[in-house]
């Protein structure tokens, strides 16, 4: 099918875009990479009265580093994030996970901010943002605020942003020295939405016990799901194989409540969650142990 008619705007500055958003509110859609929005418009599941195209706003395209970590403008293409030497150094988990996002032809156009704001529960970037304790910089005509990633996701395709607010930047704090990380997912075919995926970030103390752990799932809930019980089980413990297996089992049985779809039923999703959690926790811990030896 073809999209319904809309008024098209191509602002050149954030301020112009925010003015438009303030006047149209819920009747407008912001067009970032369009890799999720345009399909829904082609099927007329979305019929916005106005489309505000952000692709001409140069100030939203950047990757830079400051003393607290990595900062990406919302319109930075996923492909640019994937290829950035700075991202590779400053946020290696993000770098490693990028190729899992759809296909290269989609990442050429898709943006980091578009995916974060779209809040698809099966998307990789929201889970990575929560795992990395990212912060979202959100603006409206009258206000600016930072929102922690874990407070940003409030439900299915829903964020804490108001209709007149726009995501302009995301900040990824540098992981403490001695941290390990991993990302993995299971999809029927490379590039398809995953049936389950997880990101883990683990820090070990001088004695080799787990000091800090975060495990975040995608595709098993209404948004990114943080496995807090599993993390609590690991913190303070020596990360033996048995401890990792117990944490992964807790994550799969207590931290998530997956619903089924045509790709995978709830029981299979729990099974995958357990396997993926074991893999990412083991790999993250291995990396943290390696980092500690240097």
């Amino acid at each position, binding site marked *: *099918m*073809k*999209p*319904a*008619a*809309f*008024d*098209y705007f*191509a602002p050149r500055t954030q301020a112009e875009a925010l003015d438009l958003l303030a006047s149209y509110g819920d009747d407008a859609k912001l067009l970032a990479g*369009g*890799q999720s929005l*345009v*399909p829904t418009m*082609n*099927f007329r599941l979305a019929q916005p009265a106005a*489309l505000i*195209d952000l*692709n001409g706003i140069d100030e939203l395209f950047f990757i830079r580093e400051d003393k607290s970590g990595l900062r990406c403008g919302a319109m930075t293409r996923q*492909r640019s994030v994937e290829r950035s030497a700075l991202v590779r150094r400053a946020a290696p988990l993000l770098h490693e996970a990028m*190729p899992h996002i*759809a*296909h*290269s*032809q*989609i990442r*050429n*156009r898709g943006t980091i901010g578009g995916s974060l704001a779209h809040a698809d529960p099966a998307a990789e970037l929201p889970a990575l943002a929560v795992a990395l304790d990212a912060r979202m910089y959100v603006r409206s005509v009258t206000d600016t605020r930072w929102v922690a990633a874990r407070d940003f996701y409030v439900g299915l395709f829903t964020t804490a942003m108001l209709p007149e607010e726009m995501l302009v930047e995301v900040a990824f704090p540098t992981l403490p020295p001695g941290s390990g990380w991993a990302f993995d997912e299971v999809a029927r*075919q*490379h*590039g398809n939405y995953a049936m389950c995926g997880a990101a883990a970030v683990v820090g070990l103390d001088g004695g080799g016990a787990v000091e800090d752990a975060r495990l975040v799932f995608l595709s098993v809930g209404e948004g990114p799901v943080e496995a807090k019980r599993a993390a609590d089980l690991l913190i303070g413990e020596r990360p033996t194989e048995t401890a990792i297996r117990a944490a992964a089992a807790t994550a799969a049985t207590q931290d998530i409540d997956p619903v089924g779809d045509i790709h995978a039923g709830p029981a299979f999703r729990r099974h995958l969650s357990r396997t993926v959690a074991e893999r990412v926790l083991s790999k993250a811990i291995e990396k943290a142990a390696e980092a500690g030896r240097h």
Partner: protein
Amino acid sequence: MDRTITVKVNGREYERSVEPRLLLSDFLRHEIGLTGTHVGCEQGVCGACTVLVDNEAVRSCLLFAVQTNGREVATVEGLGAGPQQMHLIQHGFWEAHGLQCGFCTPGILMSLVPFLEQNPDPTEKEIRDLLSGNICRCTGYQKIVEAVQLSARLIQEKSS
């Protein structure tokens, strides 16, 4: 309200007045008559409509034509002038029988142009990862992988 856009397609400049909702794929096929770009799923999944915008492979069904105002688009028609003057990638596909019905081929060829520029000697895994963005329902991909390998060799031989 219609917008007037100027787009360079395969090196030639076109000026047209279009509705903002017109997809790039439909612009190429219906407005300027380049029907080599195929439309499969219109949801970005199948990859048949892949073209280059500013030398990057993108889905033309997920872009509005107005978004390409002032940009350069390359489609399969720009690859080779005819059977005697095929692009080396087309030659590789012809030689290795990398297609059956050919519906998906234009999208595959356009995905491969920047890919082989950036990876002149790709591994089979890299080739299969790239091809995962283009659905072929005929071949089972084996011949396509072989065609890509042959194309890479032909390009390397020519440049050495």
